[in-house]
């Protein structure tokens, strides 16, 4: 009904409507992905907006002292997760964060951001990084002053948004245009799913095991149900996780179930980066799950904790997980730091 109405209204004023061809870029959702959550209507991607968002993403002037950019903790070669040598984020003056910087892929589909899900719109994500004392430690006012003092930026914002003076909402929208375009859907698994490639016998066995043992939480094509769960890392919680947002004891020690896309590229693992390898992760689920009040029910049975897996099963699952690595994505020149 709505669609029909839209079509009629659209047809009656085609003259003013921008033809889609004018924008060389468009957000394209892979057929097997869920519905995106981003509000594209408020901030449709354009070539100029995307390029500006990229420039800002790689811009150290967003930080106090000019030493840290978004890219400092989100590197394309690791699917925009942090470098393996930075278990937790490293901010200005080498201040350490408390959590592992996650991969930035398929953000257009996320209902909530960060390990605790406290932010529910992509536009608001960079505010946390800019203002956090242990990340960029910069005020929004200073960011705007610095950008407005650079003629090239004034021109870029004018080209992208038709504004003369740079304001924060447009900084955030430009960054969103760049980051929501980071769609990773060209892995070996995707080719298999599309019928273009087959998986090896071991990968198929791994997939089958994965579906039986892991897909309860890591469900769907993004390999997460976006819920918040305590996966049995500790019985005392140094980081309250989801409870920081809900203020409820029942959420202590719960963190977002992460997407497993590109998981083979994003070591180390867990919110606090305690595991360096996927082998350690699988071993944890099989043998090391710790009891606590908020431990997820799926990790507790009458007789045991965790998800019992033989060494061979663990290895097969890991082999399958590597089919989720998207080598096209990490080499996609659209995201390169080049003008």
């Amino acid at each position, binding site marked *: 009904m*709505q669609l029909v*109405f*839209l079509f009629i*209204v*659209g047809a*009656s*004023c085609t*003259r*003013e409507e921008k033809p889609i061809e004018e924008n060389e870029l468009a957000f394209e959702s892979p057929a097997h992905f869920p*519905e995106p*959550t981003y*509000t594209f*209507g*408020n*901030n449709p991607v354009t070539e100029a907006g995307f390029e500006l968002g990229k420039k800002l993403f790689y811009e150290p002037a967003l930080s106090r002292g000019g030493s840290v950019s978004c890219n400092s903790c989100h590197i394309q070669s690791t699917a925009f997760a942090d470098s393996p040598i930075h278990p937790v984020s490293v901010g200005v003056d080498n201040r350490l964060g408390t959590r592992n910087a996650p991969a930035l892929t398929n953000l257009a589909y996320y209902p909530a951001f960060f390990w605790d899900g*406290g*932010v*529910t*719109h*992509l*536009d*608001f994500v960079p*505010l*946390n990084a800019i*203002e*956090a*004392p242990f990340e960029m*430690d910069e005020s*929004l*006012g200073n*960011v*705007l002053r610095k950008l407005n003092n650079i003629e090239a930026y004034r021109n870029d914002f004018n080209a992208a*948004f038709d*504004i003369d003076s740079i*304001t*924060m*909402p*447009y900084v*955030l*929208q430009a960054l*969103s245009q760049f980051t929501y375009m980071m769609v990773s859907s060209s892995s070996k698994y995707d080719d298999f799913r599309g019928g273009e490639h087959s998986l090896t016998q071991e990968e198929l066995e791994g997939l089958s095991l994965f579906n039986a043992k892991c897909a309860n939480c890591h469900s769907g094509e993004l390999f997460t*149900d976006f*819920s918040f769960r305590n996966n049995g890392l500790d019985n005392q919680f140094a980081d309250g996780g989801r409870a*920081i*947002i*809900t*203020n*409820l004891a*029942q*959420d202590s020690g719960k963190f977002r179930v992460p997407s497993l896309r590109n998981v083979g590229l994003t070591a180390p693992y867990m919110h606090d980066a305690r595991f360096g390898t996927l082998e350690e992760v699988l071993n944890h689920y099989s043998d090391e799950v710790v009891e606590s009040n908020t431990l997820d029910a799926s990790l507790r049975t009458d007789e045991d904790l965790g998800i019992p897996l033989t060494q061979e099963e663990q290895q097969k699952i890991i082999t399958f997980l590597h089919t989720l690595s998207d080598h096209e994505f990490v080499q996609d020149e659209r995201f390169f730091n080049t003008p």
Partner: protein
Amino acid sequence: MKLNKILALSFMAGTIIACDKDDNKVEEQETITGTFQLEFDNQVNRSSIDLKTPGDVEYDYVDVDNQAFNLTNLGYYISKIELVGSNGVHADLMVASPNADEVKGYYQILESDPSTQIINLSGIPEGSYNKLRFTLGIDESGVQQGAMGGILDPAAGAWFWNWNAGYISMVIEGNADNSGQEYVAGGHNGSTEAGTFSFHIGGWKDVIPTEGETQKFVNNIKVITLDLESDILVTPNLTPNVHIAVDIMKILKGVDFSTTYAAHRPDLGAPFANNFQSAFSVDHVHQ
């Protein structure tokens, strides 16, 4: 899904407006309209408010528990204003047009800036109205639009929580003679004076719980409904002005400043938010 509908609707609205402007073939419906003015009079137990600075121990008010206090900062967001009358509900149409440049239909009432305390609504269909409704705070439909400009721009003074992203509905700050707040030396956001209090009442999330879990978010967004004493007439020649009294004493009801002097989380703001409706009343009307 709900959000998608809102988006589709606002897109449609935008398209229709664009057509009206540039395409004369679409006839404007002939509706006779007038204007309507709201004026917010912030007070503490009928006393007007004289904002002090943090640390100032000249107390202007005393509550029923003999706690002496003053105010240093006060304000709140109003949105989704609706007039209800014999010819139906008239919503403030401006709410449909938020964007990164400016926001319309959202208002930040600041005690420190008298110009913000008057809201002019125009394009009100001629008729009589006997009820006023508005949202105190910025609800999901606003927050989930993403970055917006004007009074919702965090770089331009918007009250915004980064970590639990959303707007603070109401800010009440002041000094109290028995406040338990100790001096905190300057950090990222400056120092905190001893004897102050700071209540930031926010929290909009009403996310449907997963897997049979109970509702876990505190949603402090309140819809305030006020009866106008009698029918108020809107015509092209009349601009009715409704004075709304906002009694901060009623919002602070029951607070013991010695133990409650800082609220910066949705759950801690709930007791204040539950008093919002009782604090607002129609004081008088200039027809």
